[in-house]
């Protein structure tokens, strides 16, 4: 592609095509609309299908149907639309339907500010659907990440048969940057594992031994496939067997939490003799990295998390171990800091965040560091 001027939303669309996305449905909403527009431009000529739903519930529903028919699927929205996705997200979680959900976050609550950025949905993406089981949330910091992590998101959705959130932000989605996507070492494209044994033996929710993910067969092929949002056994029929229910629920939890080490995306910038570790993510990471270049803040390292859920506990605990104190910086009033506080008990944890529609600047972070 060479060097281009591209915003995060465009990069997500190109990343999706590269990952093999063949179905997209969305509903216009600022600041995510341009993903729908770009997918409508790119996908149909590539042999895929792009729809504008009658609402967000419809859009994600189309994706669930298409995904079960074997297509790699993606949808994109922002806070108010994500709220409407909720029931369908829990369906994708419980019934193991691969899907990439892009959330270009805007300042909330509610309709909030359509053209202002924030990272206000960080806990909402994990917990905003019924049942309380894990989802995958990965977070880009810039246009390049949008491309790379969209491909990663598809790989994860297919591999683990689950919804994967790409938690962007208006400040990434609509900010253009000079970027050379060709120079990126992108992940190899992965496909969902298809059942290849005797069709007579096919159970749509049988867990594989190695990773607990059921083999896939698409609805529409010769072997009959059952999909259901109701509590089901391995055969896809409703079950009331409490042991089977418990086993399936545990499997849904374990298949992601036990493998988070395999998909912990992050960037770690250690500084010599640093006593403070900044833990941050998303667009704020860019300011944090810049803040440590300032003279006064030199003795500070930065850990940029790009996998937020399931919480990459090992990485966080191991990285934090050698520091005297931690500063969590995020573009909200304190969400992921709760996870850090849950994991680290032996040192002070400070928090800096704001929600005023503006980016957190390197100067602000520098001031917090210097005043600590």
């Amino acid at each position, binding site marked *: 592609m060479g*060097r*281009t001027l591209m915003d995060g939303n465009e990069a997500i669309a190109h990343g999706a095509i590269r990952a093999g996305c063949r179905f997209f449905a969305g509903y216009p909403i600022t600041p995510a609309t341009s993903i729908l527009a770009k997918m409508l431009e790119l996908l149909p000529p590539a042999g895929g299908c792009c729809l504008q739903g009658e609402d967000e519930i419809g859009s994600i529903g189309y994706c*669930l149907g298409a995904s*079960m028919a074997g297509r790699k699927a993606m949808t994109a929205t922002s806070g108010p639309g994500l709220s409407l996705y909720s029931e369908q997200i829990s369906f994708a979680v419980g019934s193991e339907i691969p899907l990439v959900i892009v959330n270009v976050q805007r300042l909330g609550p509610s309709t909030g500010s359509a053209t202002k950025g924030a990272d206000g949905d960080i806990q909402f993406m994990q917990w905003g659907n019924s049942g309380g089981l894990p989802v995958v949330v990965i977070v880009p910091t810039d246009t390049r990440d949008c491309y790379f992590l969209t491909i990663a998101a598809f790989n994860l959705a297919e591999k683990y048969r689950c919804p994967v959130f790409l938690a962007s932000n208006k400040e990434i989605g609509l*900010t253009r940057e000079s970027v050379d996507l060709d120079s990126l070492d992108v992940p190899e494209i992965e496909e969902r594992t298809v059942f290849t044994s005797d069709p007579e033996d096919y159970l749509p929710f049988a867990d594989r031994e190695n990773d607990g993910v059921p083999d896939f067969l698409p609805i529409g092929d010769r072997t*009959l496939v059952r999909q259901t949002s109701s509590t089901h056994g391995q055969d896809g029929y409703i079950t009331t067997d409490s042991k089977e229910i418990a086993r399936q629920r545990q499997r849904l939890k374990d298949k992601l939490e036990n493998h988070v080490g395999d998909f912990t995306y992050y960037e770690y910038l250690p500084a010599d003799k640093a006593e403070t570790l900044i833990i941050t993510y998303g667009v704020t990471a860019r300011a944090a990295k810049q803040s440590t270049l300032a003279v006064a803040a030199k003795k500070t390292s930065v850990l940029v998390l790009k996998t937020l859920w399931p919480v990459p506990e090992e990485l966080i605990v191991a990285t934090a171990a050698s520091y005297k104190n931690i500063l969590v910086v995020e573009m909200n009033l304190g969400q992921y800091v709760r996870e850090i506080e849950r994991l680290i008990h032996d040192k002070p944890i400070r928090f800096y965040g704001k929600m005023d529609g503006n980016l957190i600047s390197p100067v602000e972070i520098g001031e917090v560091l210097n005043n600590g």
Partner: protein
Amino acid sequence: MASLLNHSRPLVFCPGCTHERIVRALDNALGQMNINGSEVVLVSDIGCSGLFDVFFHTHAFHGLHGRALTYALGLKMARPELQVIVTMGDGGMGIGGAHFLSACRRNANITLLILNNFNFGMTGGQYSATTPVEAITSSRFLNKLEHPLDICQIADAAGAPYVMRCSGLGEDLSNNIEDAISYDGFAVMDIWGICPGRYSRKNAMRKSDILDQIAKLTPYNGVIEKNERSEYVSSYNQICSELSQPTPPLVVDKEHSPVISGKKEILILGSAGQRIVTAGELLCLAAMTGGMQATQKNDYDITVLRGPSIAEIILWPEEIGYTGITSPDVIVVLSEDGIPRRRQSFAQMAEGGLVIHNSRISVPDCQARTIAVDFAGKGVGAKDQALGALAFLASLNEGISLAMLNSALEKKFTSTHLATAQQTLAKMQLVEQPGA
């Protein structure tokens, strides 16, 4: 004629429930059509009608209340050869109203069987969107205050090309369902039935009552000629097969030597319609032809043709981290609209900063060097002043050179627009400076 009934899953409806008859009629219809189970997907949602997919040896997709039509379209788009049959109750039709309307308007080849028994049977007989005003339900008086929906009239008005209202107890049900499935387009069947467990306990309803009530309404017997048109999925695929490949993203290689060595933060303040965003893009592209890194953030109101339009551009030979502008090196002011939102930026300007403004508007006092440009006097209209200002900046080597700007214009625009842009540059009567 083979049955597709799943004998390991016997029917579980209340004795006398019309749903059971509809299951058997659907099975007969599929048998009459000689369809294999693997050629069919039964899509269902919540309520007693949501049990249907279990009773058949077909593909099955059971989801959330009222959303069955959304899964159905996704399946149909991905697998156009699949026979997609949706079952919903009057409850699912009510809660999924937007999807129902949308499906009627789209006309994908999907068959929708609405098992209309005038109440929410599974949750205890609450009133639904089709409950008659005079009915007695567990919702006490609420249904007396709401007008029941006529599903068929709504489907008709929304453009469904096939709509049938019939009794679930009718003799022709199998044939009717076969006719609906055979139709190449969205076919809606409003099938009236008895809910013995709930609704009919307090609302006497015999086979003949259903027929009497249907007879009082506008008849719907299948094809609605005025709504007939080509099927959605095949039309969609036809259009897509004729699409040309999209234009690839604009690639910008380094063609010029950079004219700056440090970071340059540039703010362009104007009004909607003044092509501020395009100017920002051109500035970035121009800088990229000099091998620079660039970022652009825009700030404008949701309304398109009114209010301020602001572009924030950072140019730097190095990787750009933070994309906000804290102390601008250059502020370009083309209208008064943008000033109030960035008034503080004038006070925060970097040392050696530069303000370029339309000479016909005044700008806040600041320490920076200020240059007034009489764009109108040079014959440059409001829509071209942003480009004119870029040319002015380029003539001073403030971030970009005129050669870079010209390269950017050649990349961004094709013949007509390029000529217009070049005319704007000519009107500015600028002289190229030697590179910094």
